[in-house]
């Protein structure tokens, strides 16, 4: 699904040249749940932003669904983004001035989904994420966990091919954080592809594969056992 080859990102200021990413190669297949870990400044957020088409690479190749993304025009990027990618942020990034319903509706609007279908879809996903009773409220009236569930609902409403999560539990207490991680695990179990940046080992343990980054390079990749546990747990059910 995602093929990254020798991808580099260089920030230039007048005196300084910083390599945020240097020649990274990475493969993410359909149905993978990958987490990226690393200290501040290791380049993990930059990588996520490039994958999410919010930022552009300086060199190398990034293929999303076998289509080259490096060097694409803003307009095409915007199109690829709205069709394929769903975002979940640490600080939720909900529009405070819009109701929950309106927030979730936005991606559908920009994808020109007809009104009746929009309504059906929003109600379905709200029920699924247990926020149906909150649709008319504004984000500020919700708890952190609920806000993140709204953000997840918004990320999923368009059936994206891949979900990008940037420290999704960073602003949440452990109970709410756990809820969100379990939500992601459920999504993965149902076939979603997820790429997550996190600081927390615990959160990373929910994923299949953890990539450790430092100074713009990938240090190690390891498979997580817990995943097996989940599968076992699933099979037990």
């Amino acid at each position: 699904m995602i093929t990254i080859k020798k991808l580099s990102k260089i920030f230039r200021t007048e005196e300084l040249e910083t390599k945020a990413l240097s020649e990274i190669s990475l493969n993410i297949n359909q149905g993978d749940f990958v987490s990226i870990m690393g200290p501040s400044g290791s380049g993990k957020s930059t990588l996520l932003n490039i994958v999410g088409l919010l930022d552009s690479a300086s060199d190398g190749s990034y293929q999303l669904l076998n289509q080259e993304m490096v060097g694409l025009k803003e307009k095409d990027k915007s199109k690829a983004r709205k069709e394929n990618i769903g975002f979940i942020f640490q600080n939720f990034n909900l529009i405070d001035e819009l109701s929950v319903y309106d927030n979730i509706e936005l991606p559908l609007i920009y994808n020109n989904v007809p009104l009746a279908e929009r309504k059906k879809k929003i109600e379905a996903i709200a029920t699924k994420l247990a926020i149906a009773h909150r649709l008319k409220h504004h984000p500020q009236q919700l708890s952190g966990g609920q806000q993140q569930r709204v953000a997840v609902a918004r990320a999923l409403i368009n059936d994206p091919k891949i979900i990008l999560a940037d420290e999704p539990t960073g602003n949440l207490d452990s109970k709410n954080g756990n809820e969100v991680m379990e939500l992601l695990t459920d999504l993965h179990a149902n076939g979603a592809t997820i790429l997550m940046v996190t600081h927390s080992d615990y959160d990373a343990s929910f994923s299949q594969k953890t990539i450790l980054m430092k100074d713009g390079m990938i240090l190690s990749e390891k498979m997580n056992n817990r995943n097996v546990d989940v599968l076992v747990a699933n099979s037990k059910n």
Partner: protein
Amino acid sequence: MLKNWINIFIYHLKNNKLFTALNVLGLSIGIAGLIFAILYWNDEHSYDAWNPQKDKIFLLTNEMSENTFWASSSAPVGAAIKEKTSEIEAYCYMDGDYINDIIKFRDKKIQSDKIVSAQKNFFEFFPFDFVEGNRKKALPDENSICLSEELAFQIFGNESALGKELTIQNKKVLVRGVYKLDKKSSYNPSCVVNFVDLFLKKTITQWGNFHYVLMIKAKQANATSAITRNLEKLYYTNLTERFAKLNGMTPAAYAEKYGVPQPHLESLESIRLHTKTGGLVEGKGNYQFLLIMVGLSILILILSIVNYVNSATANSIKRAKEVGVRKIIGASKANIVQQFVLETILITLFSILLSLVIVELSLPYYNDFLEKTLTLQGSQFYLQLVIIFIVTVAVAGIFPAIYVSNFEVLNVLKGNFGRSKSGVWLRNGMLIFQFAIAAFFIIGSYIVYSQIDHMNKKDLGFKANQILNISYRNVYGEEITDDFRFNRYQIIKNELLRIKGVKKVAGGAFVFGKSVSTSSYKYKDIEVDGSNISIDFGMLEMLKIKLAKGRFLSPKFAQDTINTMLINEAALKQLNEKDPIGKKIDWNGMEVTIVGVVKDFNLGNPGDPIPPMSFFHFKTVPWLAGALNNIYVDVDAQQMEQALTAIQKFWAKNVDPDYPFTYDFVEKEYKRSYSNYVKQKNLFSLLNVIVILIALFGLFSLASFSIERKMKEIAIRKTLGAETNVLLKELSKQYVVYCVIGFLIALFPTYYLLSKWLENFAYRLELTIYPFLIGFIVLLLLTLVVVLSRAYQATKVDVLQYLKYE
């Protein structure tokens, strides 16, 4: 999508009530100002615009001397030029003034002050629609009259007017047509008679007697140069050559010494606003004032649009996150632009609606101010309204929208956008622009105010607090002699003097604030164009006009009714004669002795230079006495009321039973004559207040915004021990700089435009540095008040709140 946009728009509306209200108010005031200007513009441009041949009909004007244009022409020129020039289709003579007279129908008497006497093809030049009769056969002879619908209704009610016999000026006339007077025109007569041919015949050989308005209809609109060329030839043969011969000079020498009239053509469509003459019967439009109105209102609209743009871009920082999220989720730039333009469209719609309300409510005052009857209607007006709407949206909406749509998603989401410098130069640039406009208005209105004050305080050279000017309708007609006229006046005067409270009575053929006829006279080799003022004994003394040399006219001297005159100081200056008393001059072929020189006083506009004047007793120049239409009466202030009642009674009974008794106080009447400048002053003051309010609001919102962004900095400085006054200085420093830059930018245009305006006045202020100095101080003080109040508030804020968050 629309619903989503409107939801968020309403949310912001609710949460920024004050700013939204101020924005809408600012825009609507700006738009209202422009609507006012447009209504005025449309009205002035509607004169003769309906006339299908407006570009082919020309007024013959005569340039008598440099910058002096007369709208009147001599009697022989019309036929002569038509014969000589194949490009001319027709010509038509008409009176230069409306006649005020009484029309009789059986026992009914109707007074009308808009009667026009014209040649029979008048309605081919002004093709009003006829409701009765036929336009082509409307005025076949001098026994015909055509009535406007209104006048016809006044006389005949709902009966048909056609074929009825009326009496006017002791002549019987038949109604041949009734026309509709629903369009604005250079001539809007209540009725038209064909008496002018008679007078034309009498003066058909007098090329130098410019008495009638002559309209020429050309076959082509571009025939002017051919016609003018032929006119020049005619003038040369019949005026220059002839008068040169009479004076025993060569034509060239005569023209050099005395000047000869130059013919010009003004097209009908240009007369109302662009004529160089004093205008036709309906007066001319004040083009300069119109331009000032339009210019200032556009300036105010720009100011309020700048305000809107400024506060929209400043506020958009608050919406950066929304824009970022929308973009991540899939909104394209175009989507964002559309959304923000929609918001401007909604705001502009509100503003236009509100401005229409403002205009509708204040239209009566505006009409009063312009002395017009403007209304909010017409397809042209609505079209212009749509254009205003589109332009406002384009200017006010597209810029902030594009600015917002260019937000970098990553910057926004990282949260370090609030302190970015993007757009700062632009907002500051616009702030400087606002300062410049505000400086222009403050300085400008100060200068305008001073000039009007200067004029009001001017020693006018006469005193007329309690002097009445009674309109006196002189008697005319074939059989009426000058002696008869004078005796009639004398009887009235004596009767008036008997009324209790009346101190002095004197007739005069002049009115303060209005022009009089001029005649040129010669002394040695100098020619002076003097304003003719014919008076009764005691007139000048009554007005407390002072004497510079010699004596006033007096009944004690027999020659004062035969061949003496007074001049004023302006005339004396031109004559260049140290001892003018007793000198003889050649006045219109008559030898007249100067017996006195009066000090200059204002008869016309106090801003204009005082012209040379010649004063005669009525009997000295009998034909001037024909213009004796005013009797001035000095009344004791204590007995004013009774005296007025008594005069009125006497008047209605013995002088003029037909006409209503009309009078005015000389001083009031005079002040009215230059009221348009007083109005300009008031208008400028009003606009000044509006502009300053809008500019201060812009400054307020921008300062609030920029201080809000600096709160963290302020908090840090405070924790580090900065004192309040240091902080205040820090915060207000930049605005003082912008204020100075704005002022400097405004300096030259203000100086230039106001000098231009002051050129209207011969008696004017010298532009000194003071208005600029005062303007600068006022601007600076206002800036400091706004900024410091805002900054002071900021320094009092709880430090912790800003250090904890962010």
